[in-house]
């Protein structure tokens, strides 16, 4: 499996770069939408997948990010100030309030949010914005990868699997817990900022509890604690309902039922499929070995 990783990654990268050619404007919009959610779900995967925490308020930070950017741009400030402000604000909000819920108010929403300009190039078009979001997704994914590979990654896993033991080994449970929430929130904030410029109109609806619940669903479906889980999970949560539109009135029913069946079949998420194959193979080998030695023992007893 390890041998295939690099060529697979390059292939995936090439596909991502070439994707726009296969899609028209709406398709690109959808792909970008998917990428935005991948960022948000990567953050939630850190909090609940790698650090084992419980979080049902993630969409709140998505919303904070979106509104921060929207409000700042309405005030004439650049997107490039809004984006880090959104991430920082979410990070700080988490550290300061240590809490998860967010009150919504004001259903009017903000519209006509412009897309940012990068070095004088406008990102208004769906194509340009797609590449922009892709770049940020890859960057943030890379940073997360680095973080998880560092000692912090092991500390988070220890925190998830056995907090009491972790503490007795000198791992500062409180700090790592806060960090897992704060970083996750910051990712959601960035995603929210990108979301605001993508959809160019925001109201509180996408940031309510139902969204937090959907985000939770996306992490678990993809596979909590698997690095690429968010890619699959977001696909299921964002792209799948679009595909199911052909079922018309019943498409959400099919989606819901699919989620239930998927969970029963793959409780550890879609990315646990390779692990299950391995486990099944090992079990088969073990029982074959047992059978063989039992036969040998029987033969020995007969002799």
């Amino acid at each position: 499996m390890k041998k295939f990783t690099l060529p697979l990654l390059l292939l995936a990268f090439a596909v991502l770069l070439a994707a726009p050619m296969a899609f028209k404007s709406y398709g690109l919009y959808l792909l970008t939408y998917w990428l935005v959610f991948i960022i948000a779900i990567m953050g939630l995967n850190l909090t609940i997948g790698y650090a084992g925490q419980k979080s049902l308020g993630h969409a709140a930070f998505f919303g904070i990010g979106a509104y921060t950017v929207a409000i700042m741009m309405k005030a004439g400030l650049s997107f490039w100030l809004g984006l880090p402000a959104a991430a920082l604000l979410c990070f700080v909000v988490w550290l300061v309030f240590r809490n998860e819920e967010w009150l919504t108010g004001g259903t009017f929403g903000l519209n006509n949010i412009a897309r940012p300009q990068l070095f004088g190039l406008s990102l208004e078009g769906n194509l340009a914005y797609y590449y922009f979001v892709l770049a940020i997704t890859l960057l943030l994914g890379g940073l997360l990868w680095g973080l998880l590979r560092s000692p912090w990654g092991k500390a988070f896993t220890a925190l998830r699997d056995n907090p009491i033991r972790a503490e007795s080994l000198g791992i500062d449970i409180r700090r790592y817990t806060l960090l897992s929430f704060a970083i996750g929130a910051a990712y959601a904030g960035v995603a929210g900022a990108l979301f605001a410029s993508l959809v160019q109109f925001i109201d509180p609806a996408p940031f309510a509890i139902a969204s937090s619940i959907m985000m939770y669903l996306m992490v678990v479906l993809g596979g909590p604690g698997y690095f690429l889980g968010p890619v699959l999970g977001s696909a299921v949560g964002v792209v799948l309902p679009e595909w199911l539109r052909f079922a018309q009135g019943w498409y959400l029913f099919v989606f819901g039922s699919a989620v239930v069946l998927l969970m029963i079949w793959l409780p550890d998420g879609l990315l646990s499929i390779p692990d299950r194959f391995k486990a099944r193979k090992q079990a088969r080998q073990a029982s074959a070995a047992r059978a063989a030695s039992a036969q040998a023992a029987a033969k020995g007893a007969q002799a």
Partner: protein
Amino acid sequence: MTHPHHHDRPQGVPVLKVTDLRKAYGAIQAVGGVSFEVRPGEIFGVIGPNGSGKTTLFNSMLGQITPDSGKIELNGEDVTQLEPLELNRRGVGRTFQTLQVFGKMTVRDNLIVAAQEHQGSMFSRLFAPSDSGLGDKADALIDQFRIRHVADKKAGELSYGQQKLVDIAMAFMSEPDLVLLDEPCAGVNPSLVGGISSLLKELNRNPRIGKKSSFVVIEHNMDFVMDLCHRIMVMVEGQVMAIGTPDEIRANKQVLDAYLGS
């Protein structure tokens, strides 16, 4: 850089000094005025019938519970009110009665994570290599514990006895001055008990990493305790009945009557 207090212990000061420790749960005096010392490099056993207060004493020493009164000193420093995290940073390691390994991590990673928080600061650890430079140390312990053949397997896939070894190894990774072992033989196959005993002796006298540490061992397996420990403390009903060498304890009439039986 490891914690400043960790290795510069003034000479002659006992590693652990417990003075008149008391803890009551309602009307029950679980620990009623216990005092003892553990000398550097010593293996100190704590035995006694169930309900004698051993576990409460242990948990107090580990910061899991706060005693009602009394003092606990580590290398001369008062650590009575400290939490488990702080105690670990000051050089106290422990094993658990029930297995507490990180099942989804490899054995090697288990050992690395057991000591990584003692290197550098939170921030510097973000940029440190994956094994925090502890790879060699982990390998040394893996060899000493003779678990090289399973070092790269997930800890959860090992047999109970092997996991027990990993559990014990983890306590030693941070080079603690004092290691508290909570029933290291619990649930272990009798044929492995001897192995654990010689391993602990080796760790005490010939550590491959760090310097000699002191152990406090709670165990019910009498042969194991008598064979392993330099000195033994007998607790009955929250009080210290006797402290002495294994021979002294075996000859102590009071202890025989109350605990060891005739």
